[in-house]
């Protein structure tokens, strides 16, 4: 076991982790960041997506030790009930979450997209979300929510 230190949602944190323990497990089991979901452990569903230096990655496939010194953002760092990010408000308003299990990953990827591209086309949204699976919604409300959030943010909302 070894200690890994990184910045989590703007605050320095440290955790004692095993040699190949995933960043996902370190976040969940050691740092109690539960928005990061264990959907597959195969990188196939996107439920554990976090931002590393602003880039979305699937935290189940990154050894936690590799995160040493990096800047990690999870959904908790994107917005809170008291201070919702426009994406969160748009997901709420557009019924873009049903069971909610994929939602954190979806919003996290969408955040990275809108950070780079304030006016994404539908195709660009779809391309960004194609690594994140949802079984409940049929995706359309999620795509609408991202479009809605982009509109709100461009209005300066």
């Amino acid at each position, binding site marked *: 076991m070894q200690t890994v230190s990184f910045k989590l949602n703007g605050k320095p944190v440290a955790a004692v982790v095993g040699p190949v323990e995933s960043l996902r497990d370190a976040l969940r089991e050691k740092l109690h960041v539960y928005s990061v979901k264990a959907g597959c452990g195969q990188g196939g569903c996107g439920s554990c997506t976090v931002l590393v230096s602003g880039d979305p990655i699937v935290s189940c496939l990154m050894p936690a030790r590799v995160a040493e010194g990096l800047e990690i953002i999870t959904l908790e760092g994107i917005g809170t009930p008291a201070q919702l990010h426009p994406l969160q408000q748009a997901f*709420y308003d557009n019924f873009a*979450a049903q069971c909610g299990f994929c939602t954190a990953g979806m919003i996290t990827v969408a955040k990275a997209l809108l950070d780079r591209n304030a006016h994404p086309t539908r195709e660009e949204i779809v391309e960004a979300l194609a690594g994140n699976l949802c079984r409940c919604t049929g995706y359309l409300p999620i795509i609408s929510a991202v479009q809605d959030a982009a509109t709100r943010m461009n209005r300066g909302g």
Partner: protein
Amino acid sequence: MKQLRIVGQSVKRRDGMGHVTGQTQYVDDITYPHMLWLRMVRSPIARGKVRTLDTSCAEAYPGVAAVVTWRDVPNNWYTILGLIGVGPNDEPVLAHEQVMWKGEPIAAVVAETEEIARAAAALVRVDIDELPPVRDVFEALAPGAPIIKEWGTNTFMYEGMPMRRVRFGNVDEAFAAADHIVEGTYQTTPYEHVPLETQTCVVKPEPDGRLTIHSNTQALYFTLDNTAIILNVPSNRLRMIGGTVGGGFGGKVDVVAEPVTAIASMKTGRPVKWRWTRAEEFQASSTAGAWRMEYKDGIKKDGHIIARKVRALHDAGAYHRHSPYGVTKHAANLQGPYYIPNVWVDAYCVYTNRQPASALRGFGVTPASFAVEVQMDKIARTIGMDPWEIRFVNAYRNGQMKAIQKQVEDATLVETLQAAAKLIGHPLPEKLLAMHSNDWKGA
């Protein structure tokens, strides 16, 4: 009906804010001090006799708290059908003398961390004498097929018969009177529920001797009652907490996580978590089973279907789970939303050495709707009638009798046909637009 104020409004979801902020608590987000992790050892082959099961190396592995096998299960039967008086029991909670499908649970390793449980699970030794598997309904029903069920057939027995029957009217006479006969064979293959959240269970032993079971089951009391029977404890010793589920689609009606996790908790005296891996969810959770459906329909020149004869064969996999009911539901629905005065159905629930099937969104009805509706188009093309019109002509009306001898009372198929045509701008002839679901004047 009085004006409704709140019903009919698109109010926001009660759990929506929790979902979008990542604060909804799912079962996997529950943790307890000193909680152990469970990992299942499963059969690597589809059918065989278990010669030896040696858990000693796994038990000796540092960090392993216990290994649970069939010996630890007080009542080693999955009782999900037995609970409601349907039998006989056919599936052990943990395999004992034989394995019936690749993926069948054999031994649960319980350890300090998931990684240790994973590593120790690889040390459980199971020696199995392999037997040739029965792979599908035809192999299962062929003369001389290996019989894989204790009761001596490879089918579920419905009140002494190997099939669920529906008999309504007289199909033979109707076929003789028909102008056209249209036959069709349909096949579906197994698919998965794929909830984003895999089956997960956390069991905590309480100081008063009860067990608190956090579960993402779709049916709390059903799971509680079955778990109590398997544990051989009064139901009031168990408390099921759930109600927040990361997708179900029918897959979380099986009681396949809670009993073993509870036994592991009782054996170790500690909280235990079992979170299924995605590979387990794909390869070891119930699927929608495969169906083979053979249709013969008799049709009059005017498009009325006057007879339907169906043989349906359901590949239920290795064990009942909920499949015998799915076959009944299938048989009861394969006249579709149509009035057919003569119906003959033999629907078989057939066992094979495959991952068990069970309920999945549309249980038993999805394959029936698929076959019925393709058959409708086949009939239309065969007799030269418009696919819309054939459905209007045959759509059941209120007051008519279904093949299961239940009167139709909430029919609206005609109305949805009219609305769909309007939605896509497809013009319908006046005589179809004049139809409605209450236009049946009686026989």
